[in-house]
């Protein structure tokens, strides 16, 4: 699970909640992690956000990994402290509008979110205002499955409490109050991600067999899919391994496996 936030103040509650450690491997962006979570602090604005998203994408193993942008936002209607998931992301009058698919099962507010180049003081519409989300989605959606990218904002200012200056402690308080919700979102996104992620045990089996023989590029893909097919038709990992061991080369491994699949490849 990956988080992207603009400010260190927005990161702090998440670092505390998930007991994240600062990574010393990277100098470009501040990155914190534990075994299950990773957090990057982008800095303010679309350019910083896009750069941090790109950097983060480079660290991902799989395009099914989830990414949640957490941050503060102004809002023309919602009360201070209200969390909302963005359901439509806009930037100026550009055509590139994004609709994060509504896959989470949560009783929370949803709102349109406009990303701006500078803070909004007038709140002309009953929508959210931030400075990063559109850029994050724009970059992330080129690599990650769209359902796995969500934007959660917490209202920090509105027409009754306009933004005059940024208060780091207030930011920490607002985000801290929503850590249970963030955890719930995180769990749901991870659960969805797990459904579509490659089976790790199977992947290990594929790698083991690929290391036994030489396979051409095409055969590499074929053996991967054939192992997957054999496994889901009920052939045990040990039997698949035995077949590979008893084969003279990559090509004959594929042939042997396909002969086995043919025997069992009928629906129960």
């Amino acid at each position, binding site marked *: 699970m990956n988080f992207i936030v603009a400010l260190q103040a927005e990161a702090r509650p998440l670092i505390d909640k998930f007991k994240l450690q600062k990574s010393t491997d990277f100098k470009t962006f501040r990155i914190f992690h534990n075994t299950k979570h990773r957090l990057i602090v982008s800095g303010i604005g679309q350019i910083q956000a896009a750069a941090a998203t790109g950097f983060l994408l480079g660290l991902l193993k799989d395009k099914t990994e989830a990414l949640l942008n957490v941050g503060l936002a102004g809002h023309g209607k919602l009360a201070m402290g209200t969390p909302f998931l963005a359901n439509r992301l806009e930037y100026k009058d550009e055509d590139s509008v994004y609709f994060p698919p509504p*896959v989470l*099962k949560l009783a929370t507010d*949803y709102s349109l979110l406009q990303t701006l180049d500078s803070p909004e003081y007038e709140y002309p519409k009953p929508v959210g205002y931030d400075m990063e989300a559109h850029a994050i989605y724009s970059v992330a*959606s080129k690599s990650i499955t*769209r*359902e796995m990218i969500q934007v959660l904002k917490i209202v920090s200012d509105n027409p009754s409490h306009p933004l005059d200056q940024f208060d780091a402690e207030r930011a920490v308080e607002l985000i801290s109050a929503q850590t249970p919700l963030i955890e719930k979102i995180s769990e749901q996104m991870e659960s*969805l991600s797990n459904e579509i992620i490659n089976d790790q045990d199977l992947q290990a089996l594929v790698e083991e067999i690929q290391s036994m023989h030489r396979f051409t590029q095409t055969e590499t893909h074929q053996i991967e899919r054939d192992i997957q097919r054999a496994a*889901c038709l009920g052939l045990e990992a040990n039997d698949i391994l035995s077949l590979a061991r008893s084969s003279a080369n990559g090509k004959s491994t594929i042939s042997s496996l396909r002969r086995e*699949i043919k025997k069992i490849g009928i629906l*129960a």
Partner: protein
Amino acid sequence: MISTIYFEEQVADHPRTLHLFEKFSLADRIPCTHYKEVFNPSGQNFRIQKKKPALILAGNSGKKVHPVPATYGIGGRRNFYFSHMLNCLYDCRYCFLQGMYPSAHYLLFVNYEDFYEEIEKVAMQTPTEPSWFFSGYDCDSLALESLSGFAVSALSIFQDHPTAQLELRTKSLNTQVLEKHPPLSNVVTAFSFTPQEISVQLEQNVPSVSSRIKAMRSLAEKGWKLGIRLDPVIDCHQFTERYASLISQIFGEIPGDAVHSVSLGPFRLPHPFFKRMEKLYPSEPLFAGNLEKRGRSVSYEPEIENQRIETCRKLLLKEIPSEKLFLCQPLED
């Protein structure tokens, strides 16, 4: 049931849009300029969306009635299909919609009247020859009737155009609209089946075979014409026993004279659709089994396919005359 509604701004004030806003008053409403902004982008995951599909309300401004491939049909010479809705309530693993559309959201075109206008025009091209209109290609014709109200409005149109023949294709028990309406001789309600043992493996959320047969019997008693669709025919263990049992169960309960037609179709998918579906469900035994690429399609090996279709054909011909049986052949090989 529906917690998110996307709507094209151009249909925001359409009576059907307003009705659905009212029906799903708690749903989050999100405007869009064109449905393709939501439905078409690449990088969406059909499998995940299928868990919680949203409803998209749009207007169809393009061509609405399309010719059906020559090898499909149930006896008519002029065959067309139309899609007032894309995607389905059910989740059948063999369904081509998973491979065709990037999104699993229900896309409903609310401008039904424009569909009817085009249907009338096409039907009037041959005022003395029937034209068949198939409504269940891209959605189940009845499963979301309580949401769309499409069938009820279509019946009122088709009752005034006797040469226009309508096929409603479904796996749903949602037949109240037909139960309440006097039967129309130009409407066939066609139920799709696979044996119950296959259905439980591959057809998520679909009512049981026996409950569908019960719904059919009730329609037959009201005088509606029925269709039976064994399409796709799925190869499986105990194939003959299972299909024999299914066919005997259906014809044990449905009077033969209520059956307008039976069609048989082998399992086949366009290759690109198959690849996408295989990627979505890499652990699905159906996709892992003995299928092969033939031309631009993926299907069972010809020998298996021919055997299975022939088995079903023989079983069906014990129940119905050959003129009621139609084989839907793949178009390309």
